[in-house]
């Protein structure tokens, strides 16, 4: 018996030893290269590849872990176009499997460089997988803010406690009355009635006091009047309006941190009446490659709403237009039909910044209406703004016409733009 266990012990020890050496040797080789490979990978590959996700190119982690033919991989990375042109069956298959997308030729990478990159991809992907296995438990633990249920539960407990206190008070009251009744002290109730009657009489007396009544009426009129004034003043004025949008688009992140200009998305602001709400293809210019915040471990649910609205599947990077459903943004700045406003006139000709009217949007996580958009507000600005007439053909023409008038020459309506289409057909 002891013999067998001894043999087993020795056997397992030697197996462990060999395995240990093998792992040590392998990881030592891989890690030594991986550190160098990381720099090369980040400088050359990350524009198109991620390790665990399909981006422009396929997810490299699983591909390179599964494919152990390093010689072929090296050839492919150094000059994939030559391989495809030469008709290499595997290369052509990869090319066609990825919608004939092109990969940059990296002729400058040496065999050693490529080996380093491969080592980096394999070790890093392995580490990522192990991390992913360990992550779910911690992620679940981290997400433990006070839920709605807890808050409602607390409110319910407080309400119930309040009701119990009220009931107990009533019970105590009746018990006390019973006790007093037993002692034959019912006389007190008559006294109470007297007190009530006295109070009533006093109240009637007060009602007859004209000064007091007048005082209260004046108070009510002042109160109601000022309420009415403020209400009328704010009717149709939407300053501060901040509706909940279907997608929580953070302007502070896009325009503030990323410094993307307003008209990147609102491309109409400089060339049309409307600033335009961007269509979702504009979102996808970036969000094809970005599905989460940089430090987040899971994809953002808000960005996922873009994908759902487009019928886009991030796993296959394919669109299904039959599943598409437009996002219904809620309009914040809304001029009534009686007023005509043109964005390009103000931004292009007037040279106004967007922030002049829309406020510090680059700091707003959730956009609200900054300006009142009332007629008074428009007129105030129009009264104060100095016109820059230099280099503006419209004013050049105006000055010419004025000179004509001064010289006593004939001036037609056409000279002042009277036959422009928009004068009649607007």
């Amino acid at each position, binding site marked *: 018996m002891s013999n067998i266990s001894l043999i087993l012990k020795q056997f397992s020890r030697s197996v462990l030893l060999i395995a240990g050496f093998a792992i040590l040797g392998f990881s030592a080789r891989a890690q030594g290269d991986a550190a160098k490979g990381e720099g090369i990978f980040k400088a050359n590959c*990350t*524009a*198109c590849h991620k390790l665990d996700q399909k*981006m*422009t190119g396929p997810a490299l982690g699983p591909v390179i872990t599964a494919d152990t033919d390093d010689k072929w991989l090296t050839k492919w990375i150094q000059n994939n*176009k030559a391989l495809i042109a030469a008709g290499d069956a595997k290369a052509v298959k990869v090319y066609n499997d990825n919608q*004939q997308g*092109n*990969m*940059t*030729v*990296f002729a400058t990478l040496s065999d050693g460089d490529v080996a380093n990159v491969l080592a980096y991809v394999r070790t890093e992907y392995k580490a990522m997988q192990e991390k992913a296995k360990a992550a779910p438990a911690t992620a679940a633990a981290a997400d433990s803010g006070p839920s709605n249920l807890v808050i409602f539960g607390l409110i319910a407990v407080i309400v119930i406690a309040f009701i119990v206190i009220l009931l107990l008070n009533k019970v105590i009251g009746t018990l006390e009355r019973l006790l007093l009744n037993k002692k034959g002290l019912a006389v007190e109730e008559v006294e109470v009635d007297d007190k009530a009657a006295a109070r009533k009489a006093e109240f009637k007396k007060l009602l007859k006091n004209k*000064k007091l009544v007048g*005082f209260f009426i*004046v*108070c009510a009129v*002042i*109160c109601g009047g*000022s*309420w009415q004034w*403020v*209400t009328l003043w*704010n*009717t*149709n*004025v*939407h300053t*501060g*309006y*901040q*509706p*909940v949008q279907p997608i929580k688009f953070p302007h502070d992140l896009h325009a503030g*941190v*990323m*410094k*993307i*200009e307003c*008209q*990147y998305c609102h*491309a109409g602001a400089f060339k049309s009446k*409307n600033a*335009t*709400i961007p*269509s979702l*293809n*504009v979102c*996808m*210019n*970036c969000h*094809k*490659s*970005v599905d989460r915040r*940089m430090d987040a471990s899971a994809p953002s649910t808000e960005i996922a709403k873009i994908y759902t609205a487009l019928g886009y599947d991030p796993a296959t990077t394919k669109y299904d237009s039959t599943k598409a459903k*437009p996002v*219904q*943004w809620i309009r914040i700045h*809304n001029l*009534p*039909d*009686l007023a005509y406003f043109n964005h390009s006139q103000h931004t292009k000709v007037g040279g106004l910044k967007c922030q002049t009217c829309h406020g510090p949007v680059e700091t707003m996580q959730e956009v609200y209406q900054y300006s009142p958009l009332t007629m008074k507000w428009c007129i105030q600005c129009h009264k104060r703004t100095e016109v820059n007439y230099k280099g503006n053909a419209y004013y050049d023409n105006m000055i010419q016409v004025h000179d004509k008038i001064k010289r006593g020459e004939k001036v037609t309506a056409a000279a002042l733009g009277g036959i422009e289409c928009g004068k009649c057909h607007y």
Partner: protein
Amino acid sequence: MLAMNKFKILGAAVITVTVSLFVTSCKDKRSTGWEYAPNMYEHIAYDPDQKNPNFKDGKTAQLPPKGTTPVGFVRFDYPNGNEGYEKASAEVKNMMAITDKNLADGKALFITFCAPCHGAEGQGDGEVTKHGFPPPPSYSKGNSSRGGAMKDLTDGKIYHTITYGVNAMGSYASQLNPDERWKVVMYVHHLQTL
């Protein structure tokens, strides 16, 4: 007695005004508040970004019918893909005059629409790449994924890429009209020499 009353009335008036101001000023930010004649705010005419029950897909903004060319647009009949790209490279030339004004316009458009990724100098170091967005290659030093150096990109190739996008870059056809695209092409040629 009367003076006392006056004082009281004045005090009460001040309190009521402040209280009513306070009450009416704390309004719900999720609501537009009271509206008079709201039919002037809810247009009868449809805005391009509104829903519209008259169309099958419920949108007001419809695509132009197939095969039509909007006024002021020049057709670009080179399909998306490698063949169209090479064909455009061989056949399409920028017909717009290289003037200071066009170059300045091109620069302004480039700064707005391209610089977030490509960087103001076209080196592929725009602001978003500093926050983890995959950086594009430099116009002057990088290599194109479709072969050749970025500095050798032709008019047709750049125009084709702006129109259809490539790799991580999306199509800019909805943001830039053909004239604007040519101005950007002009400016990119300048960046290729940096």
